[in-house]
């Protein structure tokens, strides 16, 4: 999808003013942190596992070439095929070629953020192939022609009424008088409507939560089972994934899986964790005849060895989104691309450029909650700050902030001048604040006073009062 991250402030305003979105976000914001907390309280080793998970990922990244080559050898040995893609266009082309090789008409899809990243659905449709999203949240937003707003719960911005509306508009073959009042009815309808699509699909496309070098396997984690029906029924299973998903062994995957579900939804384990290796074996009665892995770079190798390498540890669990007060205020669409929230604030500029996405790492109070819940200890605020440093150095920040800040910094390095100015400012504003003790409105502070009062200074500055106190003999203080 074409990024609109440059419009983040306007997008955010729309989100803040949307009462349905605000209600939906309210549900998520209270639910996810509580469930995660309950899950980690049941696992005393959780903190230690975060450190182990971080170490596994760092080790893998330090030897990424070795592990990817080993992974590819094992995929091939199991009868599968790896297609390396430098960028989105190559990845799309690889998928299209495979689909065309079997004259595919219908393609079912499990949820894949990488597929969103390369805008795969649009490309398939433009080439006469119908992609059918099968994850319930993805299916809903596909009907509504909108992007996902969360990396694991794509329709989190919607309430049931909007889902019902989308279903009524799309499922015209069903009885128009049917009741779609509750999530149960909606879920049953999705199951009924999508089952024939699963069965009719020529190709099934999934993502991968992990790639296992030891066995040449891909691992997907779902609660619905849609990823499984997507991959075992059609003739071809294509995994659309990216380089940094690889881990060395199944034991490494087990450690990361213990972190993943708890961090994402607060579950002990997702309903379905599936390890897929190659096509069906001789003698199997089901399973795909072909297994392809499209392995995407699209800017990831550029992060290795630099300030943003730690971002490649990301498990896409969404814990950072779920705990971010900015995400909770504006929702995922405000971020303007595939990856919202704190991880999106770091990754999006890396993948689409900081000129486009520069607002995202700035729209943070650096509260640090994201880093504190990241299962692999990614220092998200630090990397957002690195983006700010790059923007500052390249003069991408608005001139008024930049010059104001530099002026302030200049004064701050001159204590005598600073103290004099602070004392004057304190006295003037203290006096102007008058008997109210605060300002309802203040020139040059409209950003603040538009929505809150500004408390008035007490009067003289601390340094001025302290100096005076020091001058008095001891007994007089």
């Amino acid at each position, binding site marked *: 999808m074409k990024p609109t991250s440059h419009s983040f402030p306007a997008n955010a305003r729309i989100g803040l003013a949307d009462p349905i979105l605000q209600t939906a976000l309210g*549900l998520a914001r209270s639910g996810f942190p509580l469930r995660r907390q309950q899950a980690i309280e049941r*696992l*005393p080793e959780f903190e*230690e596992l975060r450190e*182990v998970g971080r170490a596994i990922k760092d080790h893998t990244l330090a*030897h990424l*070439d*070795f592990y*990817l080559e*080993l992974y590819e050898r094992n995929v091939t040995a*199991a009868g599968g095929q790896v297609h*390396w893609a*430098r960028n989105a266009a190559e990845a799309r082309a690889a998928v299209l070629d495979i689909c065309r090789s079997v004259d595919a008409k219908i393609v079912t899809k499990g949820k894949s953020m990488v597929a969103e990243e390369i805008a795969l659905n649009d490309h398939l449709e433009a080439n006469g192939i119908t992609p059918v999203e*099968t994850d*319930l949240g993805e299916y809903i937003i596909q009907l509504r022609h909108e992007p996902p707003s969360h990396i694991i719960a794509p*329709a*989190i911005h919607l*309430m049931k009424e909007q889902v019902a509306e989308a279903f009524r508009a799309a499922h015209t073959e069903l009885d128009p008088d049917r009741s779609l009042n509750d999530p*149960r009815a909606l*879920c049953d309808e999705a*199951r009924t409507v999508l*089952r024939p699509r*699963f*069965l009719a699909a020529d190709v099934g496309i999934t993502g991968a939560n992990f790639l296992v*070098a*030891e066995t040449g396997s891909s691992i997907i984690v779902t*609660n*619905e*089972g*849609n990823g499984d*029906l997507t991959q*075992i029924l059609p003739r071809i299973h294509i995994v659309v994934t990216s*380089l940094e998903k690889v881990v*060395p*062994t199944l*034991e490494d995957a*087990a450690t990361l*899986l*213990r972190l993943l579900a708890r961090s994402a*939804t607060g*579950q*002990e*384990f*997702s*309903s*379905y*964790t*599936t*390890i897929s*290796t*190659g096509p*069906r*074996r001789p003698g199997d*009665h*089901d*399973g795909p005849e072909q297994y392809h892995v499209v392995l995407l770079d699209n800017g990831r*190798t550029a992060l*290795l*060895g630099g300030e943003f*390498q730690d971002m490649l540890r990301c498990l896409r669990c969404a814990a950072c989104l779920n705990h971010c007060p900015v995400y909770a205020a504006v929702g995922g669409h405000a971020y303007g691309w595939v990856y919202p929230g704190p991880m999106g604030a770091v990754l999006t500029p890396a993948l689409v450029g900081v000129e486009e996405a520069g607002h995202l790492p700035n729209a943070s109070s650096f509260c640090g909650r994201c880093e504190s819940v990241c299962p692999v200890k990614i220092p998200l605020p630090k990397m957002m700050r690195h983006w700010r440093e790059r923007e500052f150095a390249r003069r991408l920040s608005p001139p008024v902030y930049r010059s104001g800040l530099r002026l302030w910094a200049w004064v701050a390095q001159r204590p005598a001048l600073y103290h004099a100015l602070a004392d004057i400012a304190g006295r003037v504003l203290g006096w102007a604040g008058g008997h109210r003790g605060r300002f309802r409105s203040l020139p040059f502070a409209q950003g603040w006073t538009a929505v809150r009062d500004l408390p008035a200074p007490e009067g003289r500055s601390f340094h001025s009062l302290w100096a005076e106190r020091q001058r008095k003999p001891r007994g007089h203080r």
Partner: protein
Amino acid sequence: MNSARDDILAGIRRGLGRGPVGAETAAELAARVAAHRRNLVPARAAGLDHAARVDLFVAMAEEVQTTVARVASLDNVPGEVARYLAAENLPAELVMAPDPSLDAIRWDQRPLLQIRRGRAEPRDAVSLTPCLAAVAETGTLLLVSGADTPTTLNFLPDTHIVVLRAGQVVASYEDGWDLVRGRQEWPRTVNLITGPSRTGDIEQRIQLGAHGPRRLHVVLVEDAPAAE
């Protein structure tokens, strides 16, 4: 013109500030993979004796809406299956994995139960399969694909019944990996199943039976050892 593969690998090496991994490092890394050492495994299930481990499996499974019926022996399986289907108001028909481990069950004791052996078809409402193991840590069943254990049985029907012998309950996922590695060939699909299918995608309210089975029923046979 370089291939994408060459460019990507070159890009990785450039980023890491080195050339290809040297022979000594490669050997170390290969050895690390071959050894597949376990990382920290939570104590939750590891420290338990077998009976307690089985109890833990049952408790964790029931937490996620798996139903568990504990029976004394394989001979009790047909009766339990018939009872379960009647209690859930389901027709007395099912499709069963062709796996030999299920051959010893006296299905002839329940002649009204219609059984077909093979993979699942869209019309099948109930399936019955064995499993390779059950992981006590989170109440998770481990199933593998094969000629005798088609994967469609785990996903197409609305109700999935699993026959589990108590001896198959292991503590951790890592114990499960070792069992899979011990098989003749690595399977196409390894399924770790923890409860029925579900979704919370609409207003965060959990609904069972999104696309996979709505019901997952485990018949836990307490006296039989694990199948060979």
